[in-house]
């Protein structure tokens, strides 16, 4: 019964929600069900607070990360007491002239913004690892990402041809000079390819080609985002949709029970 009870509740709730979804004029029932869910999660927060306090109290008792746990508990109780005080004094902790708002604006928001800003460095670090041209797929990723990044910046019509020219010049130079253990026709081909790429780097700088490339970078970026990227995204969306329905049916039919004890 310990297992059947919750499963029966899940099946009935799922059937109820599905039926309501297909009915016109039953929006109030749906809103009421949502309010019930919000009330339940409000009470569940007490469970979270209980876990948080116990976890850090135990850490302090065991001498593990005492400083961190101590700072957390002190900050937690100060915030709660301050919040209740502001509620009593100003009617709401978030009232315009409330001192709690000072805490919120000068402590919480800067901390939150700091964590968000750190993302920029993590993106750079992840991009460095992802964009290394280890194989052909990674090379395509590198080229596409470079085109998109350049296409999205200011003056991309000037930056793109110059960047392409520099890339070809460096690639050509590397191919031209990196000829160890190459002889005869292989060496000749390598030298020709390097020279060809270096020549191409200068051809790009000719005004008609420069203007053509610069003028079309924006269109190329838009095409990359709206066609190949969108196609892949929609494929994943489609799979997700069917996966969700299949998973929901498994739960509704009581086949999937690993979420319950």
């Amino acid at each position: 019964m310990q297992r059947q009870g919750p499963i029966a509740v899940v099946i009935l709730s799922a059937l109820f929600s599905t039926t309501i979804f297909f009915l016109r004029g039953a929006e109030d029932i749906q809103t009421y069900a949502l309010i019930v869910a919000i009330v339940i999660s409000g009470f569940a927060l007490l469970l979270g607070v209980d876990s948080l306090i116990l976890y850090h109290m135990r850490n302090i008792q065991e001498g593990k990360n005492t400083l961190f746990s101590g700072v957390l508990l002190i900050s937690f109780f100060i915030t709660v007491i301050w919040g209740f005080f502001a509620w009593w004094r100003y009617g709401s902790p978030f009232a315009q002239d409330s001192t709690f708002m000072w805490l919120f604006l000068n402590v919480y928001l800067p901390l939150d913004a700091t964590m968000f800003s750190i993302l920029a460095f993590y993106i750079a670090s992840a991009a460095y690892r992802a964009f290394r041209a280890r194989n052909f797929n990674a090379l395509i990723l590198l080229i596409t990402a470079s085109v998109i990044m350049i296409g999205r910046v200011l003056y991309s019509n000037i930056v793109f041809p110059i960047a392409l020219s520099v890339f070809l010049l460096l690639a050509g130079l590397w191919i031209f000079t990196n000829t160890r253990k190459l002889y005869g026709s292989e060496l000749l081909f390598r030298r020709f390819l390097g020279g060809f790429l270096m020549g191409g780097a200068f051809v790009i700088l000719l005004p008609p080609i420069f203007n053509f490339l610069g003028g079309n970078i924006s269109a190329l970026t838009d095409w990359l985002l709206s066609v190949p990227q969108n196609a892949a995204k929609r494929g994943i969306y489609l799979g997700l949709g069917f996966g969700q329905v299949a998973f929901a049916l498994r739960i509704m039919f009581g086949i999937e029970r690993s979420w319950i004890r």
Partner: protein
Amino acid sequence: MRVYYGKEKFDTGWITVKLENPIPQKASVISFDTSKTNILIGILLFSALFVFLLYLARINPRLYIRRIAGLDAIDEAVGRTAEMGKPIIYTTGIGSIDNLAILAGLTVLKHVTKKSSLYEVSVLMPNNDPLTLAAAREVVKEAYLESGRPDLYRENDIFFLTSEQFGFASGMSGLMQRLRPGAVFMMGYFYAESLILAENAYVSGAISTAGTTSIDQLPFFIASCDHTLIGDELYAASAYISRNPLEVASIKTGDWFKALSAIIISVGSIFATLSIFNPQFGEVVKIMVNVLK
């Protein structure tokens, strides 16, 4: 332009107030919403196919599903963690138990806990939501019971961190840096904090395995993690792990529908392309769109 009803009528150009009385009354009669007929037909078809494949699965339990590398790597990650004598950190990300991705994450948690109980590796799970916390505790307790090691269960290993997004990211990062876990599993739903978690897992030297249904965060996981479950692979995880024929049947149903969609999209694309030469093909595309819309 907005239209309102009142006792005096006036018109400012962008707000029009009409005389009250013709205020539309709410329909009090509950009736079937005909605009959702196509969704109902789709769900009924899906359910019918699901029941049919369930029947097939009962007859022949050896249904094939393709290999999912990220799930195969769980054993390797747990084994490595055991060798290092470190804990495993597991998170279902941000969101409550009503999110299917988090439920799917909990099913993988059970498998990871069972595996880790074989080597007596502890599984730490910081939570962002109290309801998920309660469910996770039940899942872990059940996993230890099923593997015959209820003594390994410690309630304090599954704890509440914070419900704030970046507070959670910060707490998780600190935990990874201090504990240097052997493996980090991120299976559930994630927002902007995904990259912070994945990069910290990398820096801490852990084997990182991620799985999410959040398409915007998938590229970050693919770039930063050792293994990634892409999209619906997370939903397929429990079936893949358990190999329960009934669960595998539901995965098969999704695959059949994906194949059907691919056929419809291909036919539509061919007709749409042909409509450049002959407009009559465009009419066929319009009919297809109207039927599916």
